[in-house]
């Protein structure tokens, strides 16, 4: 494990007393810190909690929140909740996939954007919605999506 990762992980672990129910909060904090869960972190957490590594991986892979590869600078989340769906959410997702050239769960080659689908962001009255980082984009259309990413094909610059 890289030494700075180890240092930061130790910093996180120092706040916990090592009970089994600390596992998910520790993984959440580690992901918050690193953006994903590096392999070394998983092993370090397993050792700290005196759990088999397989157990830690088992839990981490069960929950949709945890990622095992680095993500892009900006996170695009397209809402696939019901309210968004009946107002054309699928078209929004297709447009984003087309504009970024990636599928949900993937990251663009230049590490600018990662794409995810989320079940519901709870902004149903603003459907269809998507988020770029923490900013909610309301009442989307394929055209608005194209505008959001319009600079991309001309040199990979971030849209907006």
């Amino acid at each position: 494990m890289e030494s700075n990762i180890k240092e930061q992980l130790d910093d996180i672990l120092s706040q916990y007393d090592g009970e089994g129910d600390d596992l998910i909060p520790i993984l959440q904090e580690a992901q918050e810190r690193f953006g994903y869960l590096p392999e070394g972190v998983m092993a370090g957490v397993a050792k700290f909690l005196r759990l088999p590594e397989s157990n830690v991986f088992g839990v981490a892979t069960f929950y949709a929140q945890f990622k095992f590869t680095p993500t892009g600078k900006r996170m695009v989340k397209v809402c696939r909740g019901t309210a968004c769906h009946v107002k054309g959410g699928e078209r929004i997702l297709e447009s984003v996939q087309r504009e970024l050239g990636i599928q949900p769960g993937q990251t663009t080659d230049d590490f600018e954007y990662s794409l995810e689908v989320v079940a519901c962001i709870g902004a149903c009255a603003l459907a269809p919605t998507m988020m770029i980082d923490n900013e909610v984009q309301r009442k989307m259309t394929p055209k608005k999506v194209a505008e959001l990413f319009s600079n991309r094909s001309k040199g990979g610059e971030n849209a907006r």
Partner: protein
Amino acid sequence: MLGKESPRDYPDNQRTIFICQGTGCVSDKSVEIREALERKVEELELKSVKVDFTGCHGFCEQGPIAFVEPEGIFYTHVSVEDVPEIAQSHLQKGKPVKRLFYKDPVTGQAVPYYKDIDFYAKQKRIVLRNCGRINPERIEDYLAIGGYQSLRKALFEMTPEQVIDEVKRSGLRGRGGAGFPTGLKWEFCRKSPGKVKYLICNADEGDPGAFMDRSTMEADPHAVIEGMAIAAHAIGATEGYIYIRAEYPLAVKRLRIALKQAEDKGVLGEKILGSNFSFKVHVKEGAGAFVCGEETALMASIEGKRGMPRSRPPFPAQSGLWGKPTNINNVKTLASVPVIIAQGAGWYAKIGTEKSKGTAVFALTGKVANSGLVEVPMGIPLREIIYGIGGGPPSGKHFKAVQTGGPSGGFLPASLLNLPVDYEELTRAGSIMGSGGMIVLDEDNCIVETAKFFLSFTQAESCGKCVLCRLGTKQMLDILEDITTGKGKLEDIDLLEDLAKDVVAGSLCALGGTAPNPVLTSIRYFRDEYEAHIKDKRCPALACSELVSYYILPDKCQGCGICLRDCPTEAISGGKRMVHIIDQGKCIKCGTCLDVCPTKFSAVVKVSGEKVTVPSKPIPVTATKRNTGASGGSPLD
């Protein structure tokens, strides 16, 4: 508390403007609006004006929302640019800004006062009683309206058994969806042997299309905490957990603030209010698994394990969290408890129907004019919710169905609009109360495609423990995929029904037990739509992209070039003043051309199961047609 009839009754002093700081309004810059107002009020030296905020009003579509007390003036769609006018005209001179009044989408009339808005006037708000009315980050606001008085009453005037009895007599049932009598659940846990017991608030609101738990926690967190403390006193628990979705960061933040304030005020923690009762609450954030809304899966998740349901018995009341007796209630159930203790079981039991007491909260969304949170007495007809409060489908479209209960609920057709809404009636009709999602579909929504959408969600969220839930739903999904892409066979419909029965029978928990509901109800009420997809390869709603085509009508196209420019796949050919043609091979059916074609031309049509005759290559727009006003702003002119 919404003030008198006329703003003129008030001098221009002592005003408070409340800006909504719920998730929906915050997404449209309501924090910036509040900050701009604070600056403007200071700049104008309006000493008697206070700028404050509330949580979610449940009317997010109108956001950002602001209202001014004491007049009760309600502003919608407020932006930062409106701040100077609100401050100078209303807050300084007492003259409300008319253009920001709520406009009834059905009648088109402006409604200045909060209390006169039909959307609210027709509701009965018990769970949502304080939502949008108090500052959720200040316990003093909650205390000022009688907050924590019910806890005081429960601790000093009632034994735990009396509290349980009160809740039993109120008829309150679990608002998480299953509707189990709350008092009875508490009694099981109370009577279960053991010194250590736990109380859990289930705030894992994973149903896409439901956001009432989020709004309640954001807008009135103390109501939930007070309900938890009363429940803990009743069952004999000293430790509690709130298990909340990590996707709700604002609700998590407000809960943490509220918990800290409650401990500081002595209404939580050691020896509450000087009694012998101690109760501590922890917040646990979920990690993105829908199945963790199921109580045994939720407890596994708190313990740091994979959130997979287990078979019951033993029930959580006997052996729950870490093997100890545990009681789990939904956010809305707990938020109802302080009211029941304050007003009495008799008062509560008068609301609702014989078997379903109290109110139900729905997240009314989809194709409806007023979308938002709606709390109504149990037993009112669906029609009253969808049309009376919701205003029906907007822009004159026809109502097709309403889907209640989230992804495990069912579709109900127009013929059932008079159905009284309670646990029993919804179940009888093939749907469920569930978490209270209520999605309205209109003629543009395909029932088969929407059923496929719900099943794709539950299929993906199946934890995989039960074979039939894991694989049966997959088979059902594949069949639906075939039908919506024109590859279905007539016998598929019966096969779907057979599989559905097996999935229900072969699943441990409610996820698999209810996942087939959308498919079963859509076949029960809309079999003809399935048959149209299978027999005619036609989607009557024009929604299944594999079965629809877009065409540009040569007699209407003015050759303006807008669709040609916006088409993402360059499937449209034609030049200036040439009728445009869509290359059906290149078209990905995204619908952009239909969206952008100017309404005065309406040259793009979407069809299913029929052919439209169009030229094979671009032809000139005829001279006579040019007179209809095609020029001006055209990119090709």
